[in-house]
């Protein structure tokens, strides 16, 4: 029993099922992020929690109360919308207290709650302005204030940062995280930005095509993705997925990968049960940051493999240098230290941290679990 239970929730429009038996249990104080490409059903799920969309089958419970058919205003939730949805005809103060007014809270209490929230979010000087006179970041704060003032059980955020410019987005992200840490509220947050998902969440549900592909902590999602979709969706640049063949050498499974000239590199796996795949094709998943120069290799890793391959392009990005090469017939990106001495056309000795490598079944695209 969690604080918020989504129990086999399904959503169909007519004969079309857009959300298939979603099963998520959120604990009190947890920050759950629903992430996925557009059209994956994440916003629909959020709207179902809010009560703005009906649940076709299954149950949604908040604090063990079944919420199916309960009006949004009676679920004790608050929502921050992508467009902020501030009432344009009301002042900031009226925007914040509108919900309390609708719930029949007397004026002195409303004022008190408004002032507390305004102080918390540092928008006291804006209370008499109209939303049209505010900047994007200020509107964002007011929208959060409107949610906070209700003191709800669950906060719902629907892509709240996607209308902000890049710099402000990073600032507000930190602010939301701070707010969550200070208040310990339960949050369900929808985004298509995997960095937002990684940085904010205590758990992530990666969604695609109406299915939850994987539910887990950011670390789990990143290090042990359930399938190729999750592996390539999370992380920037995306995980390299290259065709390889399993060969057993000296009793240890290796990935046999074609280098730029067609010769084969043998990269030893740390995962012993891959021996069972001897002679079969797999897809090898390597994160860019696990391919480095020898000096930049992870010293804690027990399994650093070496391979010499030709560098095609180098892209210095200040903090890192991205190096691309041909591996398994595909473009593969390596993320190196900025001072790595690399040049295009050079045959370079790469270090591959095979402890972090993952293998996928090419048929089902699922990860081959240890």
């Amino acid at each position, binding site marked *: 029993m969690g604080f918020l239970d989504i129990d086999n929730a399904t959503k169909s429009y007519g004969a079309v099922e857009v959300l298939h038996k979603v099963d998520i249990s959120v604990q009190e104080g947890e920050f759950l992020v629903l992430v996925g490409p557009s059209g994956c059903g994440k916003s629909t799920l959020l709207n179902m929690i*809010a*009560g*703005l969309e009906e649940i076709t089958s299954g149950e949604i419970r908040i604090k063990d109360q079944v919420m199916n058919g309960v*009006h*949004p*205003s*009676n679920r004790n*939730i*608050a*929502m921050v*919308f*992508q*467009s902020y*949805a501030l*009432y*344009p*005809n009301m002042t900031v103060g009226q925007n914040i207290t*509108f*919900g309390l007014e*609708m*719930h029949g809270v007397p004026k002195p209490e409303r004022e008190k709650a408004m002032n507390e929230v305004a102080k918390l979010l540092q928008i006291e000087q804006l209370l008499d302005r109209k939303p049209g006179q505010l900047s994007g970041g200020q509107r964002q704060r007011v929208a959060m204030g*409107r949610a906070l003032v209700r003191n709800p059980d669950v906060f719902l955020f629907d892509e709240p940062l996607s209308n902000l410019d890049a710099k402000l987005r990073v600032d507000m992200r930190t602010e939301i995280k701070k707010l969550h840490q200070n208040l310990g509220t339960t949050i369900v947050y929808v985004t298509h930005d995997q960095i937002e998902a990684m940085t904010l969440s205590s758990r992530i549900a990666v969604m695609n095509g109406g299915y939850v592909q994987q539910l887990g902590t950011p670390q789990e999602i990143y290090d042990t993705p359930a399938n190729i979709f999750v592996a390539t969706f999370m992380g920037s640049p995306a995980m390299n997925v290259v065709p390889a063949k399993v060969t057993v050498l000296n009793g240890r499974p290796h990935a046999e990968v074609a280098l730029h000239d067609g010769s084969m590199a043998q990269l030893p796996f740390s995962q012993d049960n891959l021996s069972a795949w001897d002679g079969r094709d797999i897809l090898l998943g390597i994160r860019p940051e696990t391919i480095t120069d020898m000096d930049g290799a992870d010293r804690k890793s027990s399994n650093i493999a070496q391979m010499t391959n030709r560098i095609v392009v180098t892209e210095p990005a200040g903090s890192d240098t991205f190096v691309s090469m041909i591996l398994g017939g595909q473009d593969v990106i390596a993320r190196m230290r900025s001072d790595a001495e690399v040049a295009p056309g050079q045959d370079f000795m790469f270090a591959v941290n095979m402890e972090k490598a993952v293998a996928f079944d090419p048929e089902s695209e699922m990860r081959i679990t240890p």
Partner: protein
Amino acid sequence: MSQATQDTAIRTGRVTRTLIYLVLLLFGLFYLLPLYVMLVNSVKPLEEITGGGMMNLPQVFTIEPWLKAWSSAQIGVDPTGLKPYFWNSIKMVVPAVIVSTILGALNGYVLTKWRFKYDTILFGLMLFACFIPFQIVLIPMARMLGIIGLAGTTWGLALVHVVYGIGFTTLYFRNYYAVFPTELIRAAQIDGAGFFQIFWRILLPSSGPIAVVSIIWQFTNIWNDFLFGASFADANSQPMTVALNNLVQSSTGVKEYNVHFAGAILAAMPTLLVYIVAGRYFVRGLMAGSVKG
């Protein structure tokens, strides 16, 4: 009414521009000619008109025709002037405009924010109401007014205009609310506002421009209506337009053209006033939603 803008799509030289303005000026004068004739002749004694020279400025200025048209001219059988009929029109127009505008706003609200099955078909049918010719509904409407006991009353006339106007007002408000962000409605729902609270507190305060359009449109149409007024009103509830007709058509005595002109201007005055006061919102509101930004 709209402000002249600095950025024009077509660049023109000075000569062409002068020509264009000259032609426009001519058209403008031509267009204003009837108003000029009416104004000038409404302040002349009758002899000046019958003596010829409709276009001349008055030699003797008098407001007598205006006073007569307003309070003592022969309308039908009684020498009442247009005054009682003016009030009939007001009593018909004001409730009809208010009710049809509010109903149109409610319809628009439901058709865009509380979508239901076949709502687009329903909207299509309501649009149809804009294209029904007046003449078709005369007899059924007369029968209906008889059944509900409003035949020959100002209230009956107001009802007819409300029913006839809903198609237009619904069209205006629906299109206006279609681009109104639905997230605002959802936010208000989560905040606990009900159907009418959302309407009153969120939607209506943002509906200024389109409400003005609806009011001007309805006011002008209902005020200027002659057919319904002539068909459904009795002697005591006739609107201004019908009375004006009776004033001009009365066959006894001499034709007092100056009084007729004054009466016609009196009849046109309210719609002119509404345009002058709220006209710029009219263009603005009509354009609303057609172009983004």
